């Protein structure tokens, strides 16, 4: 068992052997990975030490204090939050050794090829086909994916595709690691209501994936994808934000600085939202304390719902508060940002971008079903699609 003191010593050794000031960024990050200080809860040899995840904060703050570079987790969030835990859970030793290190260092950016134009919330209805070319030991993939963040910068993708259309929709799916530089992968920007193209459409035409890049057994892709999706939603409650952090901050600042904009109606709504934002902050903090105490509560399932609603209501109020300025927009030029960041943008952008918060990563309607069924134990609605072969489903 590694104690906190041993871990501190370990960090000191890393810093002594690779002084951040004289070590190129990626070299330092590789050394950190090899020292087991990348994600301490991962196994030894895979960037970790097999110690409790709660000790990571200690490592992160010690390294930050020493001026060590970080791996820009926001830029590689899909790799860290979704691909890595899935590869760890389902990958072969060879896959883990091949992919986890460059993923964590950020040399290889990942994206996620799950959603399709015809299969969004009903993700298991996906129709992208993968057919095995037995002679070559390769799968041939054809189809179209959508809402793919980072596809234009990604080196690798996690991909789910249908390998047996005769089975019910959850069964004939297989999970792959797809090379985004392979012939037949075409990435097109998908311009959205903010004017910029944060997402992409990805067209897959005769893309060949070696069988060695399959994750999990043939036909077991749905179970593997569920690991990915659970990890996607888990990450939200972990952040600690200060009082009046997040979206409420610019509105409160404007309110204080611009008495000319104040009205009684806006005051009433601002106070309601300020209170709700503070309560959401406390709820997130309570969830975090439960996790640290080893008694995870179900609140995590709901935090994304709360933040989506609050972001939308607060940004809507902000546009209105600004009066005539609220009629303006900063820039409709189509840009392709590497990361999504609400800070430093104007209120109109925040208002429009927040509309996606209740759609991306599971729509609010789907998340409400999950809370109702898994937390409250309410029965599922009757469904007639579970036992039908995928090819016989209405489309």
């Amino acid at each position, binding site marked *: 068992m590694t104690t906190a003191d041993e871990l501190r010593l370990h960090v000191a050794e890393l810093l002594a052997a690779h002084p951040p000031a004289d070590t190129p960024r990626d070299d330092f990050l590789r050394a950190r990975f090899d020292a087991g200080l990348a994600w301490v809860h991962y196994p030894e040899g895979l960037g970790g030490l097999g110690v409790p995840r709660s000790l990571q904060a200690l490592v992160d703050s010690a390294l930050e204090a020493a001026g060590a570079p970080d791996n820009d987790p926001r830029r590689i969030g899909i790799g860290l939050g979704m691909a890595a835990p899935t590869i760890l859970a389902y990958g072969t030793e060879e896959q883990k050794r091949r992919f986890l290190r460059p993923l964590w260092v950020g040399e290889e950016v990942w994206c996620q090829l799950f959603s399709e134009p015809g299969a969004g919330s009903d993700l298991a209805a996906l129709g992208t086909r993968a057919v095995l070319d037995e002679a070559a030991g390769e799968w041939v993939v054809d189809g179209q994916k959508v809402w793919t963040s980072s596809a234009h910068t990604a080196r690798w993708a996690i991909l789910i595709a249908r390998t047996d259309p005769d089975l019910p929709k959850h069964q004939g799916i297989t999970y792959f690691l797809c090379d985004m530089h392979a012939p037949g992968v075409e990435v097109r920007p998908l311009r959205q209501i903010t004017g910029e193209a944060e997402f992409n459409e990805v067209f897959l035409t005769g893309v060949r994936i070696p069988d060695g890049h399959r994750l999990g057994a043939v036909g077991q892709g749905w179970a593997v994808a569920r690991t990915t999706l659970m990890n996607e939603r888990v990450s939200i409650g972990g952040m600690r934000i200060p009082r009046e952090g997040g979206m409420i901050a610019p509105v409160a600042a404007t309110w204080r600085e611009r008495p000319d904009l104040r009205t009684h109606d806006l005051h009433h709504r601002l*106070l309601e939202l300020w209170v709700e934002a503070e309560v959401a902050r406390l*709820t997130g903090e309570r969830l975090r304390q439960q996790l640290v105490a080893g*008694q995870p509560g179900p609140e995590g399932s709901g935090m994304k719902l709360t933040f989506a609603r609050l972001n939308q209501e607060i940004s809507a109020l902000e546009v209105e508060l600004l009066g005539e300025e609220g009629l303006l927009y900063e820039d409709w030029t189509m840009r392709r940002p590497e990361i999504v960041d609400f800070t430093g943008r104007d209120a109109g952008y925040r208002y429009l971008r927040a509309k996606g918060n209740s759609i991306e990563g599971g729509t609010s*309607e789907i998340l*409400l079903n999950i809370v109702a069924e898994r937390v409250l134990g*309410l*029965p599922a609605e009757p469904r007639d699609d579970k036992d039908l072969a995928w090819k016989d489903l209405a489309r």
Partner: protein
Amino acid sequence: MTSPRAPFDLLYSETEEELRSAVRSLLADRCDPASILARVETDHPHDPRTWQTLAAGIGAAGLLVPEKLGGQGASHREAAVVLEELGRAVAPVPYLTAGVLAAEILLGCDPSSDAVSALLRQVASGERLCVPAVPLTLAPGAPLPTGVRATGAGTLTGSVTSVADAAAADVLLVLADTGLYAVPATEVTLTPLVPLDLTRPLAGVTLDGAAGTRLADAATARAAVAGALLSGAGLLASEQLGLAQWCLTETVAHVRGRHQFNRPIGSFQALKHRLARLWLDVASARAAARAAADALATGAPDTPLTVAVAQAYCSGVAVRAAEECVQLHGGIGMTWEHPAHLYLKRAKADSLALGTAGHHRGLVAEFAELPAPGPHPRTPAAGPTP
């Protein structure tokens, strides 16, 4: 803006969970919905037997009172857990008034004075039931009532309206112009009122030359009452949380079992989404109520803001939970026989008690420095004039 200190401890300790089970099993034995219903329409809506066990047996009456003054030396965190359970049961016992408000007022006076410490010991042991003679709607930050005057002879004259639990009290704490007085219930005239919430009876209190013992001077008395109102409002959030939790749990159980259209009604997405949202509100209310209890327990500098946030939030959640409970029980929810109405009435009355959500949002505006618009309307930039 008040800056936040180290984060609140928002979890429940083992001791708190033990206290919860003790209170819960007492209420399960003695205070089931059927016996509350049977009791509330009689002349004696309070449940003195349950109160006696809660106050003296479990020691709830003295939770906030230090051990050297005869109490348990616990904190607002434990008191909050008791209130969660009382809210879950809509128990007709005067804990909020006697165990919280009266105890806090007495603690706000000088406990080294014999009169105060003697009364405090009796209150903490459950030997005497003491409630403050203030309107239930009196809110922290609001002007204190001025309806009672002391004459030169040391007797009190005046009246107070809507005093909660006065009918159960042995002693009333009366705020007069010259200070705080302990007045035996036998000295006052009580006019029972017909309350919206039958489980927390109200009465008008009339003093006509009533003799009382002076416990504090005017300034101390006013500060003590103001401090007690802050604690009361912060802890009321926990009662509201417990109430909302009961409504959610009962409603979920009902919609799982009730069949219509050949399905459990809980399988309809329209209902599932409403209940999921309510669950989220209750989970959030728990964080807000715990934060208030912890702030009061630790004397955090931002306690007034945290209390105002908890009241502004939890009031609405309790009312919404009770309203959803009535609605989703269908016709059953409208009957006298089903206890849902007791919860709705308590929730609605609680939303007025110790300040409405709107009052507390006003306090948030003050503490978070988000001022209301000035007295002059904003200058119209360019727009049609009527």
